[in-house]
């Protein structure tokens, strides 16, 4: 049996009203040092974490949104965004950052990290995990 576990980070909170989003991102980056099968799920208000154009200058808070673009370099390449949550909030895929990763096995071809999934598809993915971390 393989030692590699399937880990999913489940993100359900908006980015600045609470500390959950930032804490999740930090745990993901730390966890990336261990060779595991990692995926991130964004649903409910969590989809707001990935929106483009965040500018926190006038709020005195740190803008951590640019860090999501670095996830590919940490070999975090599976980012599931639940489409139902986008729809409810009037958001389109184009409102989110274009996150990519480079596939070593295909001459570093750039590939999309974000995969839109339905609630049912995400439920299936969750059922397939060894461990889920909830934020």
């Amino acid at each position, binding site marked *: 049996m393989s030692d590699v576990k399937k880990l999913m980070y489940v993100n359900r909170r*908006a980015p600045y009203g609470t500390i959950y989003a930032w804490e999740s991102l930090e745990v993901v980056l730390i966890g990336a040092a261990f060779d595991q099968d990692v995926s991130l799920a964004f649903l409910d208000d969590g989809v707001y974490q990935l929106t483009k154009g965040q500018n926190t200058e006038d709020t005195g808070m740190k803008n951590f949104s640019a860090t999501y673009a670095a996830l590919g370099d940490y070999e975090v390449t599976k980012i599931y965004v639940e489409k139902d949550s986008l729809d*409810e909030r009037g958001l389109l895929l184009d409102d989110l950052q274009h996150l990519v990763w480079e596939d070593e096995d295909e001459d570093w071809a750039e590939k999309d990290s974000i995969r839109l999934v339905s609630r049912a598809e995400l439920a299936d993915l969750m059922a397939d995990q060894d461990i889920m971390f909830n934020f």
Partner: protein
Amino acid sequence: MSILHIVNKSPYEKSSLYTAVDFVKDSDVVLLIEDAVYAAARGGKAAEKLSGLDISVLGADLAARGIGEDKLIDGVSVVDYAGFVDLVKAKDSTQSWL
């Protein structure tokens, strides 16, 4: 008596905004701050609840969340922190729907 209703929670996570809206009278203003600003984004389900109300939104919180003013529903006023203070002064009291 006029009231400034301040809401700071996302309408998609908590019901604070919907409760607040039920309490709003004609001379009142609803100010959306922090995660409540998502309510004023066009196309979202929550935006439907705001029609006909006097709505202000804190600009700094919109910018932090990447919501351009072009993405807001019609009739919403964007205010800065000084405008927030002006609203507090203009109303007889404030009610924070935490």
